[in-house]
């Protein structure tokens, strides 16, 4: 079941390579839709009490202890669902705006390869497999950003993308080294033959002194991927050039893989280190919140505002994880899902705004709501969720995170809450300066088309449903997350 779910997008991606370019979107859209259905079936059938239900494992390279094993549990189930959900509007958005450059086949192949790689990272329950998918994820996006990305003056985006891939690969390679070392260390500790199965690694544990340096190699890779300050250097350039559908899934899902890695690997395998470096990581996180918010506060480029607000949001998520508290970590996982749900529509809306105004800068914009009340309301809901207004699922996420942080350090929690106030300003400003104020000449205030509404509204609806009952998610994830945190807690 999980294998089908995992490879389905890639299969459809290959099919997309074989059909005429103008029709390449059909298998792509069908593939993502089917993946979503399958993911939904898995999620509905998921039972927190029986996490082994869908697990599958095949020995791959037995000499090295590497196996092809997939599993789904409370940590991953909603992230898998989010991935499957986020890819559908992204592909649909790309399909509705076919470039007609004759390279669509490759585009959809890359996009679907990206989905398989991301699903792989969430589903893998073997450390080496996780690292492989983690590295594979970036490859299709290198091509998507490099070949289809455009800078402001219309040039292709080779340079910025190369920078991104080198930087993230450096992090990933360090993590590969660390992963191998984790296997050996666990072998040494347990005296049993080498294995990279994550549950096995957790059971064996690794030497305390090894934990301390391995921890930072993992943390570095995840920080770069998320990204957190001061490792966000690749982000502005990549965000500036990326084609919007690719950026939507990239920002919504790929950044979460880093945070997920902390919950999946770092905390359970390296609990001593997590506890020792807790304060350091919390400070990284809170600095990211303030830094990301402060920059988003001053930017007028819509992509940059969303990009830096993501830095702040991932700061919150990291804060929740490293509160090492039940409520904080649950809030963090919930917030990963919420942020994904918010970012996809937000980025696609940037595309719609640019189509109406010919710009992605707030400066010359305004008044778009005039003939487009429905569009304005959709954007307003997304804005309110972005700034985590109480009543939105994002608020519950932030509330739990702050609650968890508060148990550890009151000062950090208070500084982090400053980020909430800044978010209110920059998110609302984004809405106001596009939708309200006078409509400048040359801007076209037209209503969102039915097709675009069908692409964007479903994700907004999911947000609204979660607003009424966040327990839908929290109830399923609670046990798994608590288990991770308790693992660390047992030490103290």
């Amino acid at each position: 079941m999980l294998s089908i779910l995992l490879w389905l997008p890639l299969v459809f991606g290959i099919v997309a390579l074989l059909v005429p370019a103008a029709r390449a979107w059909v298998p792509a859209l069908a593939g993502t839709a089917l993946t979503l259905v399958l993911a939904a079936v898995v999620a509905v059938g998921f039972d927190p009490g029986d996490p082994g239900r869908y697990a599958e494992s095949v020995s791959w390279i037995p000499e090295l202890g590497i196996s092809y094993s997939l599993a789904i549990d409370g940590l991953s189930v909603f992230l898998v669902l989010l991935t499957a959900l986020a890819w559908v509007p992204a592909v649909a958005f790309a399909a509705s705006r076919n470039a007609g450059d004759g390279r669509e086949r490759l585009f959809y192949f890359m996009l679907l390869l990206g989905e398989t790689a991301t699903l792989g990272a969430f589903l893998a329950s073997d450390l080496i497999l996780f690292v492989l998918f983690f590295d594979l994820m970036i490859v299709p996006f290198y091509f998507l950003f490099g070949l289809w990305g455009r800078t402001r003056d219309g040039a292709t985006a080779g340079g910025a993308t190369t920078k991104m891939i080198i930087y993230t690969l450096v992090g990933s390679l360090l993590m590969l080294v660390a992963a191998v070392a984790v296997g050996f260390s666990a072998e040494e500790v347990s005296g049993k033959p080498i294995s990279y199965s994550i549950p096995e690694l957790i059971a064996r544990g690794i030497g305390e002194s090894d934990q301390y340096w391995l921890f930072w190699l993992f943390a570095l890779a995840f920080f770069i991927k998320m990204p957190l300050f001061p490792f966000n250097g690749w982000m502005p350039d990549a965000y500036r050039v990326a084609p919007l559908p690719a950026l939507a899934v990239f920002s919504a899902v790929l950044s979460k893989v880093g945070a997920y890695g902390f919950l999946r690997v770092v905390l359970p395998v390296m609990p001593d280190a997590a506890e020792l470096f807790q304060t350091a990581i919390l400070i990284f996180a809170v600095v990211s919140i303030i830094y990301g918010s402060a920059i988003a506060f001053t930017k007028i480029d819509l992509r940059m505002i969303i990009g830096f607000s993501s830095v702040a949001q991932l700061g919150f998520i990291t804060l929740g994880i490293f509160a090492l508290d039940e409520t904080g970590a649950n809030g963090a996982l919930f917030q990963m899902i919420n942020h994904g749900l918010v970012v996809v529509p937000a980025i696609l809306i940037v595309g719609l705004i640019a189509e109406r105004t010919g710009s992605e800068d707030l400066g010359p914009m305004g008044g778009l709501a005039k003939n487009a009340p429905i569009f304005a309301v959709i954007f307003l809901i997304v804005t309110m969720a972005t700034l985590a207004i109480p009543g939105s699922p994002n608020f519950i996420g932030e509330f739990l995170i702050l609650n968890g942080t508060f148990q550890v350090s009151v000062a950090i929690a208070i500084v982090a809450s400053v980020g909430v106030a800044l978010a209110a300003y920059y998110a609302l400003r984004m809405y106001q300066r596009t939708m309200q104020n006078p409509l400048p000449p040359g801007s076209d205030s037209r209503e969102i088309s039915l097709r675009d509404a069908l692409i964007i509204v479903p994700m907004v609806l999911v947000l609204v449903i979660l607003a009424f009952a966040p327990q839908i998610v929290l109830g399923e994830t609670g046990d798994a997350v608590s288990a991770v945190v308790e693992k660390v807690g047992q030490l103290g």
Partner: protein
Amino acid sequence: MTTASWAWLVLLFPLLGSMVIAFGFRRLPDRTAGIIGSTAIGLAFIAGIGTLLGLLSEPSESRHVASSLWEYAGVGDLRVDLGIFVDPLAVFMVLVVTGVSFLIHVYSTAYMESDQGYSRFFSYLNFFVFSMLLLVLAGNFVLLIIGWAFVGFASYALISFWYRRTTATAAGMKAFVINVVGDIGLVLAAILIFRELGVLDYEAVFDAAPKVFSTDQWTVVAICLLLLVGAFAKSAQLPFHTWLADAMEGPTPVSSLIHAATMVTAGVYLVARTWPLFELAPAAANVAAIVGVVTLLVAGTIALVVTDLKRIIAYSTMSQIGYMFLAVGIGAYSAGMFHLMTHAFFKALLFMAAGSIIAVMANDQNIDRMRGLGKALPFTAAMLVIGSLALSGFPFTSGWFSKDEILDFALYRGGWYTILAIAGYVGAFMTALYAFRIVFRILPGRPCPEAEELIETGHVAHGEAVNPANGQPEDYEVGYPGKEHHIAEQSPGMRFGMLPLGVLALIAGFLQVPGVTEVVTKFLEPTFEGSSLAAIHPPVSKAWLGLLNGGVIAVVGIAFAWVFWVRRPAIPGSLRQKFHPLYELFVHKWYFDELIHAVIVRPVLAFGDFCNRVVEPFVVGGIVTGTTSLVRSAGALVRDLQSGMIRAYASLMVVGAIAVVLFLLLRGG
């Protein structure tokens, strides 16, 4: 039906109304939105009465009901239900909110009739009422925060309702951001409560608090101060008050409903709701009382000098809420709630009257231009006078009974509370002065052109509307009162909205005649059961003495106003000359806007700018460039080996082969 079901219905109707209008806005014929909106609130009011009757049928000690629909969020020990809590205090607020809202909705059907954003307006307005009721009925702190933030959002949406105006959107932003600061205060308070007590439901918290906290323990003081941050931000108390005057950019019914009668008093409700915590933290309660008094004085001085009609009333609102904070801060909860109610009546009425006047003046709100409107708008003028009398605390009006009950209580507490009471009397004098400054300046005298036109022809025609603040033309298509302004006199809807409030503003005080009726106190008694402060009630004789004081001050204040603005109009000008620095201070609103700008906005912008210019390129960019150039230079090193010369490759191979052979030989040997 049970009391709880009635209470859920109270919440359901406005939400349903808002959604029906929102989803049907393209299909709803003509002006149905107004009818749907008003009906929804009317039904909520009826459901509120159902709740009241349900509650009254219980014996007084069991007059509280908690009910929940489903588990909202539960993680570990943290359990939050989608639950409500109904007790006399909540029902009291429900009735005030739904009742006043209903009248304002009806008023709005007429006031907004020519506005293109008609459906949008009623959808927002219904949503606001829903949020306010959620705030009032919430059964735990999380739901309270949700309602709290939703009213902030609705307030934002309605302040910037005419979103074509840059001044309106800026005002909306300011209101929203300051309210978010308040929300954060509440969030931190809730988290602290959870940390200390492990629960978030009202009943559980109030049960546990006295067992866990000792009086004035720092944690409970911190909780209460954080709650006060939320309360001050929502209720426009110092230093979070600057948004309220700007919020007057919204349509006048909005000012009337949200920024006078209901939302801004939520802070007072919050303190009354959480009285068991505040009684454990007298220090925080004193802060509430002192801030209330300072606000009422500062706002009063500003109201004396500004010339924008709606802003005068807005500052007056701040000042009146200051009285309410004084009341709940010193433990006079029922007096505070009573003043909240009477204030809702007379202040909503004043705003409605102001709306009627502003409509005639083509949205010009400057009282300098208004003259002789008494003859042109007799009905509105009557309502304005009634509202001003009640506001000033003229004997036997509602404001007289409610405001002076608070000050009595403060006097009776004695000690340094006497200073607060005296300051309150000073404020009362200013209140009478500025209330009748409005009346005496705009009603009598030679009619201004608009008034003259109205008297002669029965209607007023206006040219193209411009925003008086910045001279930009208004855009009728995105929602702005059309050229056909409504004259209150001629529109039954507006009359229907104003008349009941006018009557209530006059007679509602008789609900609470000391020693005679005291309906409000008796009704709210079960909520404040066990409060040591609420029991310190001044005896009837002292209460009447206090009322006498208050009445005298009100009458003297009105007399002074008459002297200043009718009898000898030269006096205010010469006073302004004489106390020029003071005048400057007041007219610039004590420079709070400038202060906040310099202390908060500027540093944040500078920090962001610093991050952008220094940290981003040099630190963050430096790490990236460093890493990538490290990788690149390592690549460049190896790249030179890739010369493309076959013979170079061949020699390398030979050397390599020899090295391997030598290695094997040496190791083997």
